[in-house]
Every structure is written in C-alpha cells, then in structure tokens.
C-alpha cells in the first residue's frame, strides 16, 4: 500500500468517524437523560477525526482530500437511516448526490 493510498483511506475513515459523531449529537437531542454523555462522546470523536485528518494531509493534497471528504454527506445519510431511522427519501439522495458533485468541482483546485 502506498502512502497516498493510506492517506485516502484515512480521509475516508475520518468521514465515517465524523458521521458517527453527528449521529451521537443527534442522539443527544433525542434523549431526555445523559445528554452530556452523547455530546461528550461526539466531541471526542470530532477531535480524533480532526487529528487524523491533519495526519492524512501529510500524505494527500488538500485538493484530493476535500472531494473525498465530501462522501461524509453520503455516510451521514446512511447512518441517519440505519441508526436514527430517518427516512432518507429519493429526493434527499438526489440532493446529496448533487451536493457531493458540486463540492468536488469546487474543491478540486483547493
């Protein structure tokens, strides 16, 4: 495995971790007790992914990492459906696909 491949995989992992952190934040809004626990866990994951993302940028260019990171929108949609039972409708999927394409075009020269 090349360092670039490792960097790309790390960026994807960061997107997944950030998606899980978002789910934890949403969980905090759904519970009546131990809200701080869910929020704290989300913050810890956010910090970890920020550190890992900084590390990933040692191996891949920002212009590569940014479009790959936009799959975070897809990951959040998948996690929202599976872990929060949110209805991710066809309309939402079309919107997410357009956003990922748009962010990729915007960021490709970042």
């Amino acid at each position, binding site marked *: 495995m090349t360092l670039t491949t490792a960097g790309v995989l790390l960026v994807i992992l960061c997107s997944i971790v950030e998606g899980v952190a978002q789910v934890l934040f949403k969980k*905090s809004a759904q519970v009546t007790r131990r809200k701080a626990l869910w929020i704290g866990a989300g913050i810890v994951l956010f910090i970890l992914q920020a550190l890992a993302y900084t590390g990933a940028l040692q191996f891949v260019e920002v212009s590569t990492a940014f479009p790959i990171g936009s799959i975070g929108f897809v990951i959040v949609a998948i996690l929202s459906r599976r872990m929060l039972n949110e209805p991710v409708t066809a309309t939402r999927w*079309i*919107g997410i696909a357009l*956003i990922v*394409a748009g962010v990729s075009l915007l960021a490709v020269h970042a």
Partner: protein
Amino acid sequence: MPSPAPPAALILRLALAIALDTAVQVLWKLGAEQLPGTASVSAAAEAALHQPVFLLVAALFCWQLVNWLHVLEISDLSYSQPITSLSFVSVFAVSVAWLGESVDAQKVAGIALVFAGVWFISRSGHSTAEDTGTAP
C-alpha cells in the same frame, strides 16, 4: 403531498450555522498564514495559542456546537447536515471577494450543483418527528 415548510427558527439557525462555519474557515486560514514557520506541531500549537484570531476561532467553534445541537433538536440530521454544504459556497464567495481567489466555469458549475442539491433537500420534510407526529 408537499412537505411542510421548515419553521423560521430552523431557517435562522441553519443560516447561523453556515455563517459561523464560514467565519471559522476564513479566520482559520488567516490565522494559519500569520503563524511562524516551524517543523514542530507542538511549537505551532503553542504559537497559535498566542494568536487572538485562534482564540476567536475557538469561541466560534463553541458557539457553532451549541447552535448545531439546537438545529438537531428540531430537524433530521439527514436534512440539516447537507444544507450546511452552502458554507462551501459562502467560503468561496468570501475568498473571491476578500482573498482574491479566481473564478472559473468549473467553480460556477460546482456552486450551481450545490444550490440544486440543497433545493432538493429542502423539498423533503425537515423532521421525522414533525411528519409522523411521534415524539423524538
């Protein structure tokens, strides 16, 4: 049946989330440019602590988190999170206006796609609890 319009509070909080995200990203970039060149991460972190702009960024981060938790109280994560992609557009606009970044056809197409995507998202219901009448 068309989805109900999102409440004004949600629209305002999403707009604030986008504005805060934009401010954080632009200030972060400006702050990073002021840091002295150093090979050590710890030295860079220590230098950042002495930059007022990074303290402002930290405060904005906290405000952003509090605001985002309020957003999630009244909306689906899969609704609100994609809408915050508008911060890519606002950061780009600020970069063009104040930092002299160039505009080309590809970036304009990217902005158009993000707007189109957000429009589709906004056509879906903003909250499952709101749609079904079930408690969160």
